[in-house]
């Protein structure tokens, strides 16, 4: 059974290609310099449609998390840690925290992005806890 796969559209193709290349891309407005995620056709701060892709540092902290004990399907192995990550650049995204004891995750913990295979052709951003 396969994990739920994103279906990239014209606005998100570059983002998902970035994931496959090991880069977390967020949008930057060329008019007002605001940063945003998820990708949109307009800047939510100034309505400009001049947006470019900007690599995120991939660093952030856990805004919240949960340890899923009952998996949504057989493709996901419980327990797994789902988290909302607040990037140092400001935008927030949903992700997983991997390679850790689920009990060691806490709100506020510092994390760094890495990428995990979601299918044979698609990688997705996930995060690991920073040491100390």
């Amino acid at each position, binding site marked *: 059974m396969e*994990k739920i796969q994103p279906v990239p559209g014209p606005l998100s193709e570059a983002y998902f290609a970035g994931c496959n290349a090991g880069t977390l891309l967020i949008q930057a407005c060329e008019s007002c310099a605001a940063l945003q995620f998820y990708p949109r056709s307009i800047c939510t701060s100034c309505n400009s449609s001049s947006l470019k892709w900007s690599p995120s540092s991939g660093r952030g902290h856990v805004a919240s998390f*949960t340890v*899923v004990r009952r998996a949504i399907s057989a493709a996901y192995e419980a327990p797994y840690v*789902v988290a909302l990550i607040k990037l140092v650049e400001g935008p927030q995204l*949903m992700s997983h925290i991997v390679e850790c004891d689920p009990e060691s995750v806490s709100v506020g913990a510092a994390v760094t992005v890495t990428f995990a295979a979601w299918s044979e052709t698609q990688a997705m951003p996930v995060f690991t806890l920073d040491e100390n």
Partner: protein
Amino acid sequence: MASMRGKVAIVGAADTRVGTVPGVSATELCVDAILKALDDACISKHQVDGLITCNSMSQPMLYHAEAMAEYLQIFPRYCFAAGAGGGTTFSVLHHAASAIMTGMADTIVIAMADSLRSGLSREQAMMVQSSTGHPQFEQPYGLTVPAYYALVAQAHMAQYGTTAEHFAQVAVACRAHAARNPAAQMRTPITVEDVLASRPIADPLHLLDCSLVSDGGAAIVMTSAERARDFPHTPVYVLGVGEGHSHEHISQAHSLTTSAAVEAGERAYAMAGLGPADMAFAQLYDCFTPTVLVELEDLGFCQKGEGGAFITEAGIGPGGALPVNTHGGLLSHSHPGNPGSMFALTESVWQLRHTAGERQVPNAEAGLLHAQGGIMSSHTTLILGRDGY
């Protein structure tokens, strides 16, 4: 703009059987609810000129309200199906009140029903509800619906020191109310220990922190305050209503711990000219126990961050300072998906008619209802009351 306060009233209310109702489709449950509510109001279906429904998950339709009207062979002049998740129920009541005031319709039925338990497999019910997540940026991470709400709970715990025991007390209180309601799906009393010992689902939520999966539906009949006096039951008036819409996807929420219930509540209180202390009861959306705690705070029943202490010290069970979910709520009465809050509405009508039997809240003159849809996304607060309040 003319205030809506006291201008419209609920004159009919009815529930179908709830829980496990096999062999009855969502359409038939909806039709059953409508006919029972019309009986309660003592009017014929031909007097209905407005119909509002919400779509069914087990039997989805492109034009749901029109299909219900066709099934019943009624021909309203105002007819639509709305979708704002669990917030749909009170949001459409807001629209219906406005439609009555502006003359779009005189007698509106709001009816919602679904067959989540018998009409869908457990896996189907889980998947269809989880599809609320963003298809590209949330769903791939495999969140169940409880997992989305657990994010709110964990954030509240980290910020305010709220505990799993506080959440569990919400489930215990709802069950205690349900024990007094013969119609409720789950009536055996439970303890905090029972909740904490139930199967872990998504930390900090256990199975008993999660709402039921049910079949069932309910309907109400609304009309103008002037016409309401001609109906047999004590009219229940809309005193205040307000909405707040903050996001659709939880990853876009500007706050995980304070919701747009704040704005919805402020708007409803302002219209009613009433405050939290005037409410004899509150029916708060309890798809998962943490939502009740957050709503108690955001609707001003206690200070922000003190929801856990309020539940422990003031009490939300029968006889508590603020009885919450007097029918048992989504946690213990029933939860057929989006129609879930309809039962909070019909229960409030009976409480304000003073016909709620064993679970009647003494001196119930006004009560507050709150529903939210999405993942703490779309909020509607409703304040109902008796004549003269």
